[in-house]
């Protein structure tokens, strides 16, 4: 189930905890980020096929913010995947409901701007140009408004809707809370976004790197010039301190600690997730988190036992 350099260490931990033979039962309910969904779905599948067949792990993808609403509720979900950090209001709500929340950083994602394969002009844009396209106040309605030598065709902007952490990351961190264009087409499902962009020559959309990576045949990613020349988002460039750093963000899953204490399978799954995060990240289009981050999370989790 696990691999890489952490092999001995993890195995040791496992033995200590439940022993390899301990059969767990029950269910783990996960909702939240659509960005993290492929990572978590893969993780869940691995867990159920290789680790604990008796445990049912159920993964949905309502979006980070929508997920938090289900997470921060009586009998809420066990985990909430998030493509942004938990907000203060959400923390306050958790406190009110007496839900202890454990943040688990699981991987790194690069906010990727994708265009149609047939778009041969916007393959490289500067950081500012991209931001301007998505700012209502700049009024970039046509591609030619961005650069005069671009075609005089309408820019079609797309993105995930407000249920999503990606939207909020864009809105809060990149656009500094300034309004997006009125005409932007916001969608609930990433699959819809991929589909739309792949069929619209004038489209530009933003979402997590993973969705770009698994659809490279349909989409192109904009190389972003952060001042030192165009950088293509790749697993390397979005890694910690990579060249794509300004658009890189950590992605998380949040654990309901109360549940973890009541249900051994929840805690077991949390530990499994951290132990295998780096591998699954690479398979699903994320940059792996650092060993320190991983150890920190694992320690916290082991402390819950």
């Amino acid at each position: 189930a696990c691999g890489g350099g952490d092999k001995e260490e993890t195995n040791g931990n496992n033995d200590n905890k439940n022993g390899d033979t301990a059969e767990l039962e029950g269910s783990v309910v996960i909702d939240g980020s659509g960005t993290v969904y492929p990572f978590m779905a893969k993780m869940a599948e691995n867990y159920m096929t290789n680790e604990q067949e008796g445990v049912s792990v159920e993964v949905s993808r309502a979006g980070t913010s929508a997920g938090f609403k289900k997470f921060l509720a009586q009998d809420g979900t066990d985990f909430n995947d998030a493509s942004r950090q938990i907000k203060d209001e959400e923390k306050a709500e958790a406190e009110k409901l007496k839900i202890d929340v454990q943040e688990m950083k699981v991987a790194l994602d690069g906010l990727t701007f994708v265009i149609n394969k047939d778009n041969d002009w916007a393959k490289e844009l500067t950081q500012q140009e991209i931001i301007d396209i998505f700012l209502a106040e700049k009024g970039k309605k046509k591609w030619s408004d961005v650069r005069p030598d671009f075609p005089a065709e309408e820019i079609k902007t797309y993105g995930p809707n407000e249920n999503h952490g990606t939207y909020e990351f864009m809105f809060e961190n990149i656009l500094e809370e300034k309004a997006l264009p009125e005409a932007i087409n916001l969608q609930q499902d990433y699959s819809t976004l991929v589909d739309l962009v792949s069929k619209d020559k004038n489209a530009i959309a933003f979402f997590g790197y993973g969705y770009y990576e698994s659809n490279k045949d349909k989409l192109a990613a904009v190389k972003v010039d952060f001042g030192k020349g165009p950088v293509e988002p790749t697993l390397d460039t979005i890694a910690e301190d990579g060249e794509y750093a300004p658009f890189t963000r950590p992605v998380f899953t949040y654990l309901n600690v109360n549940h973890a204490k009541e249900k051994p399978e929840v805690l077991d799954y949390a530990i499994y997730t951290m132990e295998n995060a780096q591998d699954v990240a690479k398979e699903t289009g994320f940059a792996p988190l650092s060993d320190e981050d991983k150890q920190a999370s694992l320690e916290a989790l082991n402390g819950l036992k």
Partner: protein
Amino acid sequence: MKGVFILAKAVAEEKNKLNVRKMIEEKKNSASLGNFTEKFIPGTLFAIAAISVLTTIGIVVTLLSETIMFFREVPFLDFFTGTKLKPLGEDAVFGVLPLLTGTIISSAIAMLVAIPIGVMTAVFLSEYASEKLRRTVKPLLEILAGIPTIVYGFFAFTFVTPLLRSIIPGLEPTNILSPGIVMGIMIIPMVASLSEDAMSAVPNSMREGALALGATKLEVAWKVVVPAAISGIIASFVLGISRAIGETMIVTIASGSSKNFTFDITQSMQTMTAYIVEVTGGEAAAGTTLYYSLYAVAMTLFVFTLIMNLVAQYISRKFREEY
């Protein structure tokens, strides 16, 4: 044969075993349970029958109570006249018009497909086709009617949309046209079969009357049979519209979720039903305006279809009185 009975009786009496009357009397005296069942059953059955009524009440009450909550937060007029729908985020706005136009336009497209084709099919089957042909075609059309809507959704998404996009250049990847057409196809059997029933109910003597005047079959069909069956045919349209308004999966899959207030059928639009799926599928945390909006939209949808159904019932009841 005479005497057989008496013999049998004699044998029975001899053994003195079989006295049915006495047995029945005995059983009757001990059978108070039967009496109880007899009294108990009608009440139970009534309670069961009442469940269908309770279901309706349940629908109305759940929708209504949360809808009232919704209108506490969003003024009634704003909802029904608002052209902007932005249910998420800080600056949420709830105008239902984008959904209404989406619903009406998709239904209109569907009926534009279903009405002509459905009626023409009905005319063909009732006026032109031989009995044998009719008996083969009708079940085939019923198959079409029995295909789950999710399959039509898949068909719209993976076949009809790409096909249309290769014909109509400006067509967006998700648009209202493709699901509208596919919904129309789905409704054809309904219109065809109900209209055909109405036309078959027109007495043959009327056809004979017209034919005897030298009318062609077309003239008989168009000027005698269709007018005579018109209320039944219209009832089929109304039911078809009701079906289109309530159809969910085809639009959810194929028309995207843009909440633009537009009349451009090449664009993506959202219907009321697709909105309900989107909101419940994403976030439906109780108590938020977004959550209540779900019920307000569902209520609107419910009222729409209810009116359509009542109209259809009224029309077809009137139709039945005609002959």
